[in-house]
């Protein structure tokens, strides 16, 4: 497992010039304005895409054949990939949080930290969901076809969501919005522990999405012939 981690870090490091330039550019854009949201979401997005790219690098030129001929089995490979994704998301989210704290302090920005933090939470969770859907698809169809399958899948999820909402609201006659408002009113207020609830809920949601996705990926990889 350690070797696979090192390999992924080395693969991400091959893009270091690009990462550096992208971050410098986005920080520069942010410093000219008053809102760090752009940069922080950008950092999370960028690191997430780099993580996903490591799968396509692994598949290039018979790379998977090579990796699986080393002391690595399919389960270990899948497990490492998910851990690497999760770890990168956490690092990206923490880096973004630190950056926004620094930005607010440095620029005496009037922007609320919680606003930026919720953007980070949103994009991190979004990326976790994206990983959850994309990784099994990439394992199944490869990077190129996997991207198309991902779009189809996301549209399908949205379709199911909208359809499900319609069914619950119209057919079963349940008022979902008032249910959500009621649920939210039961949560603690900002400054009284809401942040902890949000962070915990987010971590839980991420782990749930990635956990289900991991099980699906493992089944795909165990059957895949190379």
């Amino acid at each position, binding site marked *: 497992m*350690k070797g*696979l981690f*090192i390999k992924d870090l*080395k693969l991400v490091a*091959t893009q270091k010039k690009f990462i550096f330039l992208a971050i410098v550019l986005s920080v520069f854009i942010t410093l000219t304005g008053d809102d760090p949201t752009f940069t922080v979401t950008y950092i999370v997005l960028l690191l997430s895409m780099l993580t996903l790219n490591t799968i396509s690098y692994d598949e290039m030129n*018979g790379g998977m*054949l090579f990796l*699986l001929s080393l*002391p690595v*089995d399919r389960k270990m490979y899948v497990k490492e990939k998910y851990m690497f994704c999760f770890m990168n998301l956490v690092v990206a989210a923490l880096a973004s949080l630190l950056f926004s704290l620094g930005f607010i302090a440095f620029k005496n920005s009037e922007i609320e930290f919680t606003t930026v933090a919720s953007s980070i939470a949103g994009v991190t969770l979004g990326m976790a969901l994206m990983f959850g859907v994309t990784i099994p698809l990439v394992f199944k169809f490869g990077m190129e076809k996997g991207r198309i399958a991902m779009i189809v899948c996301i549209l399908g999820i949205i379709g199911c969501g909208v359809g499900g909402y319609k069914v619950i609201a119209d057919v079963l006659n349940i008022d979902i919005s008032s249910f959500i408002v009621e649920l939210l009113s039961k949560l603690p207020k900002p400054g009284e522990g809401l942040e902890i609830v949000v962070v915990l809920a987010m971590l839980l949601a991420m782990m749930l999405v990635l956990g289900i996705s991991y099980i699906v990926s493992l089944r795909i990889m165990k059957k895949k012939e190379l």
Partner: protein
Amino acid sequence: MLLKLENVRKSYGTFELDCSIEVKKGQVTGLVGSNGAGKSTTFKSILGLIFPESGNIEMFGKKLSDITPADKENLGVVLTEANMCELLRAKDVAPILKGMYKKFSTDEFYQRCKNYGIPLDKPIKEFSTGMKAKLKVIIAMSHDAKLLILDEPTAGLDVIMRNELLDMLREYMEDEERGILISSHIATDLEGLCDDIYMISKGKIVIHEDTDVLLSEYGLLKVTKEQYETIDKQYIISEKEERFGYLCLTNQKDFYQENYPNVAIEKGSIDDLIIMMTKGGKR
């Protein structure tokens, strides 16, 4: 026994592999055959990269399904199609292997790279074909493996490098606990290295002999049509029609030398064997 395949079957459309092979400790076993004969399918089955429909594979005395990553530390592999990601450099490869193999020696790896002219700082994608082939072999031999599985390790290497590689393999075999399964298009590589040779054609093992026997007892008979009619054919294993008459492969060269002094007989080579068993009609 380091490796044992028993009636391993795998089919792709009309192609069907049905293969039994053994690699013993202290032995170098060769697998030869023409393109598409089933060599790579055999190697992939051994490594669990594809799933045979039936048959048994045992490695280090364990069923393949029970082989753990820790067991695989005793395995060194070169596959024609398999490559380390080409964005990486040799100096990136070292820490990756260090993280995977307990017995990997970084110093030795760097020393070998230096000896074989592998640049440490260049991305692998900028390597020549020969350099890539050399790096693959160096990686396979970097961690004191007990069994080497080498599919065409000499492909892309010039004659000097091929000889160096074969020397490396001979040196590796000085430890009696080790073994090698190797395939190569260049039959002379195998003639000087292997203890025994399996020949595969259309997915089936058609010959398994000790290399000494292959080279001393197998031969090619060049006979005219008239001679062909009169000779005893019980030791002819394959024949092919030619302009002058027939080319016949025998596994009892001496029998024909003694009984048919007028027949032209050539010493067999692995190349002849491949041609005769692939192109010739089997008896």
